[in-house]
Every structure is written in C-alpha cells, then in structure tokens.
C-alpha cells in the first residue's frame, strides 16, 4: 500500500508541476490544486499508514495511529481551499483586466511569437 500511495503522490505532483508551468491561468489554477492534493496526502502519510486503529486513547485499543498529521492535513486543506478560491477570483479579475487568460496578459498569437 505504501508503494501505491507514493506513486499516487508522485503522479499528482508531476501533474501539478506540469500544469502550473502552463501559459493559461486555468491550467495553472488546476496545477496548484493538484499540488495541494499531493501535499495533503503526503502530510497524511507522514504519520505512517495504519488500518483500523484509533487515534484517540481507548481502553480496548492495543495500537494507535498518529493523530497529529490528521490535524495538520485539516489545517492545510482549509488553507489551500481558501487560497484556491482566491486564485480563481484573481484569475477571473486578470481575465477581465488584461482581456485574455494568459498569465503574462499576452494575446494568443503574441504569446506564440515569443
């Protein structure tokens, strides 16, 4: 299962980096979202993977999973959610101010000539 999770994080990060380097704002926003998914999974896994064990002290429990990464991930999710909302609104504003959706505010053929 560790290998599968590592692969998932790797693919998400690779996809996120690729999309974040695109020229249009929409793929960039998607790339940032994928990157935040990847890092949330990564943080979660840093508490080690365990199945069916409680995070909070219980009399019957013999083993525990680390509760702290779950709290960290929760914080990170909230922050990345807010940031994604902000960057979407900013991209829309840039679209209306600059007249196109290129990250440098260039028109399509103008961007190609560069």
């Amino acid at each position, binding site marked *: 299962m560790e290998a599968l999770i590592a692969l998932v994080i790797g693919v998400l990060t690779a996809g*996120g980096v690729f999309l*974040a380097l695109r020229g249009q*704002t929409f793929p*960039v926003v998607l790339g*940032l979202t994928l*990157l*935040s998914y*990847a*890092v949330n999974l*990564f*943080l979660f*896994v*840093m*508490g080690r993977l365990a199945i069916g064990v409680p995070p909070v002290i219980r009399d019957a429990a013999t083993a525990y999973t*680390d509760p*702290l*990464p779950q709290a*960290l991930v929760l*914080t*990170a999710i909230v*922050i*990345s959610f*807010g*940031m994604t909302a*902000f*960057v979407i609104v*900013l*991209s829309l*504003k*840039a679209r209306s*101010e*600059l007249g196109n959706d290129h*990250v*440098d*505010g260039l028109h399509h053929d103008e961007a190609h000539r560069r």
Partner: protein
Amino acid sequence: MSSFAHLPILPVVLPLFTGIVLLVLRSKALAWQRGISLFATLALIPLAITLTQTAGDGTHLVYALGNWAAPYGIVLVVDRLAAWMLLTTSLLAVFALLYAIRGGDTEGRHFHVLFQLQLFGLNGAFLTGDLFNLFVFFEILLLASYGLLLHGGGRNRVKAGLHFVVINLVGSTLFLFAVGTLYGVTGTLNMADLAVKLAQVPPENVALVQTAGLLLFAVFALKAALLPFYLWLPAAYAHTSAPVAALFAIMTKVGAYSILRVYSLMFGEAAGPVSGLLDAWLAPLALGTLAMGVFGVLASTSLRQQIAYLMVASIGSLLLAFGLGTVDSVAAGLYYLPHSTFSAAAFFLLADAISRARGPLADRLESGPVMPGARTLGGLFFLVAIAIVGLPPLSGFLGKFMLLKAATELPLMPWVWGGVLATGFASMVALARSGSLLFYRTHSAHETSEQITPTYFALTPVAGLLLLILGLVIWAGPLSDYATATAAQLLSPQHYIEAVLGTTP
C-alpha cells in the same frame, strides 16, 4: 499567571482583534477606521519596546498556548531576535499607515482590515516556536499581502499580483513537503524539540533531513527574494501602492528571519550530522543576489523599479552577513536589517510623492517638467539615497562597515569586500544619475494641472523614517551591542532549547 506573563501573545492578538473590529465597523465613517487602525498600530510600539527590554538581558519568554507544554503544544518564544523584529515591524507599520491615511486607503476596500491582518501574520511569524505554526502565519501574512498588493486594482497591478500569488502558492506547497518530511523523520514540529531530535538523527535518515532542510531553505529564499527566486519582487513592488510597498519592506525580511532562526537553531553547530547545511549555499547565493540586484538598479527604467532592485541588493548584503555565520557578521546583519527596511520604505513613499509631482510622466526615468516643491523633494531624495546606498554619516554605512570588519579574517574576505564595495559604488552612480535626471535635467514646459504639490502631511512619514535612521546612528553603540548579544544568543541555541523544553541537559 500574572498579567505580565501574557505579554508575548499581545502583539499577535491585538492586530487580529483590531482587524475584526474594523471589519465589523466597515460601514462606519472613514475617520473612525483610520483612528482605530492607527491607535492599534501605535500601541504595538510600547509593547515591542517592553518585550525588547525584557528579552534584552538574555531571557527567553516562553508562552505556551492553551497552557499545553512544549513539545506537545504550540509555544510563542520571545528572545532578542524576535523582539528586535517586532520593534522594527511596529515602527515601520506606523509610518506606512500614516502615509496611507493621506488618501491611499480609499482606493479600494478593506485597506485597514488587511493592514492589521498583515501585522497579525508578521508578528506571529516572528514569535512562533513551532514549524507548522510558522507555515500558518506565513499563509496569513501572504493572504493579507495578496489583498494589499492588489489594493486599488489596475492592469499592471493585477498582472504582477497574479505572478506573486502563484509563485507563493507553489512556495507554500514546498513548505508543507519540507515540514511533512521533517515530521515523518523526527515526529515533532516544535523547533527546539526538532533541534534536539535532528542532532541525534540516525545515519540512514541524514540525507532525508538534508533534503527537507534544503527544501525549507528554498521556500525561505523565495520569500526573501534570494538569487534564483528574486524575479517576482521588482514587478510586484514597483506596481503596488506606495504604503503597501513600504510595509512590504519587512516582508522579505521575514524570509531572512526564518533562514536565521531555523538554520541557527536546527542546523547549527550543535546539530551533529546535519550541521552546517547552508555553509556552501547561503553566502555565494547572497553575493549573486547582491550583484544581480545592482545590475537591476543600473538598468531600471523607472524610479520605483530601481528601489525594488535596491531592495534585492540589500537582501543580498543582509543574507551575506547571515551566511558568513560568525557572531560579528550576524550582528552586522541584524544592525543592517532595520536600516535597510526603513530606508527602502522611505524611498518608496518618497517615490510616490515624486511621481505625483511629475504628473503624467509619473516615476519613469525620463527628463520631465520642473516639479512643484522640487527643493523639499530633492533634499529628501538626497538624504534617502545616501541612506540606502550606505554612505556616511547614516546607518547604512555603519552596517556595511561592521560587515566588512567582520569579514576581514574570513576566507571569503576578498569576495565580501569586493562585492559590497563595488555594488555600493554602482548603486551610488545609478542613484546620482536618477537624481540628476529627475531634478536637474528638466525642461521648462509650464506646469500642468496634473502635477500635485506634495503636502507636508505626505512627506512627514518619509522624514519620520529618516529620523529613525538617524536614531540608528545616534544610538549605534547600544544598538550594535544589542545586535551582538542577539547574534551570540542565536549561535549558541542551547538556552533557547532549555527555555522551551524546560529541561537542563
């Protein structure tokens, strides 16, 4: 707990509550909002002074949030460095806010709310003793800074803002990757506890810790605008409004602060297998930043762009001082830090007054009409330019002199001397050219109605910041003693660790 024991939390809580109150009062008269915002910002100064005095004798004030003891809970730690940064921030914020009250705060909505939240994030980042909490405060100050950067809107501002936001979001992701790796290896996020755990890291995990440490360095370098990552700064700072650019003079210092804090505490000499992680990186990159900053200063086509590049160069000097890693050099850097913050902020405010006085030509470095109030503006330009380049008698000279003196015995000495002196000379030439272009090579076209005579109210913050720089010179003795004591405290982090963990090893 006595009421005094709650002192460390106040610089964090006060701006937060002020921000919330201002948000509730957003429909009230502007005078009220300005008054409350200014009062709360002014109140930070006595707080910061008290904390500086308390921390001045070498004690660490440790404040356990929710009374959860470290390393399980989050702690705020006031030591000399944190108090020094708080004091610099509060003094800067007052003058930036005074300039904004002149009228810039009405260009968009919620300026004062965002301003207070920015202070909330800044103060929190300086005080926290927890790595994940540092990330959270970084996000708070960044989100406020996005709002402030875009304040007023406009084509260039939105374009520069988009780049700034995207690059910082990628930086935040890297920060989380680094924090996660460190947590995965050590099982703790408290910085003092991390310092203990990293010193005992088993050999098979050393490479992992080094990767995480360098990843963290990349994030801080991005915030500080160090060499490969400085390109966002000139565009963002040159296009935002003047009070925001002035406040942002402290933003790059947050990155420099984090580098100094994390690498003196967690990767210092006591860190065993992972010590000296940045030795090979920080000083050369800082020298490169200094050089690229000055090339930018020489090539700039507008005054505010030139100031932004001067800021990149000053970050180069600052991190060079930190990167040399001796007590004297770090002390030189700490003395130089408030100077470079105040002088860059004063210059941004003055550039705004100058571009208003030039009408449609704004701050482009082309010969233009005679400015109204040219004598006052020119005199202030001369003083600020002397300060920022580092000529005597102002404190930039003293800071650079301390840095050069600290470097005499070190192997990097020719590079430091050559770099600092050559870049100082080049920026002096560049500013002499800009000054003569702006004030002397004028054509006698009659003044247009778009040229606004600078009021004394607008120039007071510039003069105030210059007075602070003068204060840095007059009290150079005690202040450099404080800086030396701070550097000594940072380079032997044992006391910090004992104070936070409450143990004596």
